[in-house]
């Protein structure tokens, strides 16, 4: 089988992307080949812009165009609450809800002695510094509810409480609009144990 080299190259590069297999890469490459040159140019410049124009916010380590991100610069946001998350993708998830108007802090991971992740490899010192200098009253810990995420939450709570800032953790339980019968047993089990008064 012979494939024109530029096409082969495009397929190979595309198939390096997450969740893209060779067949999907081939379909994408052929689609781009058939598209107008303008459309292809706007895609390539969008990708190049991504790398050239974006960096991490120097305050919260969220993705940002400038040295300080839009969330941190926005004076309408509530500066008394900081929501701590693992990765920048979690900021996107919470922003989509439109339920949170405070600030963020991206840790860049969670504690894991087994894989050698200690507090120094996370943005914890930076978080504590923010708590000292800013008018923060509450820190919401929104880490994943797994073993490492929970241990990290406990670690942060122990560091933050002495500063005199309230520490909360996001609730866990059943997905909204979901059917009870389709949730897995462990989630239902914990939701029953952590039930609340009405």
């Amino acid at each position, binding site marked *: 089988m012979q494939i024109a080299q530029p096409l082969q190259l495009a397929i190979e590069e595309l198939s390096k992307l997450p969740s893209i297999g060779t067949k999907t890469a081939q379909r994408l490459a052929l689609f781009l080949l058939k598209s107008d040159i303008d459309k292809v140019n706007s895609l390539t410049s969008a990708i190049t812009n991504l790398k050239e124009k974006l960096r991490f916010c120097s305050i919260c380590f969220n993705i940002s165009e400038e040295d300080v991100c839009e969330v941190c610069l926005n004076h309408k946001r509530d500066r008394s609450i900081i929501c701590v998350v693992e990765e920048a993708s979690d900021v996107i998830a919470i922003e989509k809800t439109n339920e949170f108007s405070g600030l963020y802090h991206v840790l860049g991971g969670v*504690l*894991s*002695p*087994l894989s050698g992740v*200690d*507090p120094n490899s996370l943005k914890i010192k930076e978080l504590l510094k923010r708590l000292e200098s800013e008018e923060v009253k509450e820190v919401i810990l929104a880490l994943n509810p*797994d*073993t*490492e995420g*929970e*241990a*990290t939450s*406990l*670690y942060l709570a*122990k*560091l933050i409480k002495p500063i005199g800032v309230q520490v909360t953790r996001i609730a866990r339980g059943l997905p909204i609009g979901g059917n009870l019968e389709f949730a*897995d*047993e*462990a989630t239902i*089990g*914990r939701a029953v*144990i952590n039930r609340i008064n009405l």
Partner: protein
Amino acid sequence: MRLNYIKLNNFRIHKSSEINFSGHLNYIIGGNGQGKTTILEAVYYLCTTKNYSSSPDSEIVRFTEKEFEATGLFSDLTENKVRVYYSSEQNKKYYFQNDKQIYRAASIIGLFPVVILTPGDHSITQGSPGDRRKFIDSIISQASDTYLNYLLDYNKTLRHRASLLNQIKETGNRSLFGQLDAWSEKLIITGSELISAREKFAVGFNGYVSESYKIIMDESEIPQIEYYTLEGKYDGDYKERFRKLLESKRNEEIRRGANLAGPHRDDFIFGINGKNLKTYGSQGQHKTFQVALRFAQFFYLKEKKGKTPVFLLDDVFGELDSKRSVRISEYLKLVGQAFITMTDFSDISNLTREEDDLIIKVANGAVSYG
């Protein structure tokens, strides 16, 4: 749930065997090494996709052959055909339910509950605390997914914490203590869930064991299971006790680089009339206790899961006197369907048999009905 039929191809000594089972008691009789236990092994395999002994799949393949296959027909509300096929050339196992391939073994687990009594059970009453924890954990996990999740979470916490303790031991770095506090807190939170579930289980399971023991033995002997956690008997305030114990062990934990306090060191002490079975029990009392534990497991799972498990008994009568053997065979009638291996015909002559009970003779991998 009932198992009506199995077919074995190149499954250990069985070149090609087909067996139609009775819905009541199935006595599987034959000499040593003739393929009796293999039939139980195959049933267990069909129920769980796993081998109950730790031998790898490749060893199950009949000598000089390259693949094995086992098929079973279960009936409950509907009929279920289950088939396992293993090829040693691909070193791969295929599992089919009603001719549809099942890719996730986890989706089978719990579908066909099974309880097996083997001579290896002696470790439950005579072995280490770890053997007893494994036995108890396997029962609670089968009945509760929430428990299984806490157990996995706890074990992962133990591994992280051990790694951290080792780092402290090697570097002597005191700045790691803050992290240790967090992992200790995590250990206490998750461990407390295990302790409370085990205590609740031990109390409930005690009733099942007493009932079973009473039927096999006389009423003069009363069995007990006592739950020991955090270096003592269970009491209500285990969270605070856990915390204090961890504090007192701190230096030793760092010196040894190991987790020294928590439910991973729990024990369940078995006793008869208040006397410790492990210390004072006779061989017969041990065996009787092991049998009672498996019967208790059977009735516990039957009630919790609302599904009758398949009951497999490997060489249960070997070490028991005829009086107890008769009682067990009577007790088995309450179970419904069971599979029992025996080496001797003389054993069976003592037992009370019903018309529906089946005798299956096994000789050199060939099956006939007696």
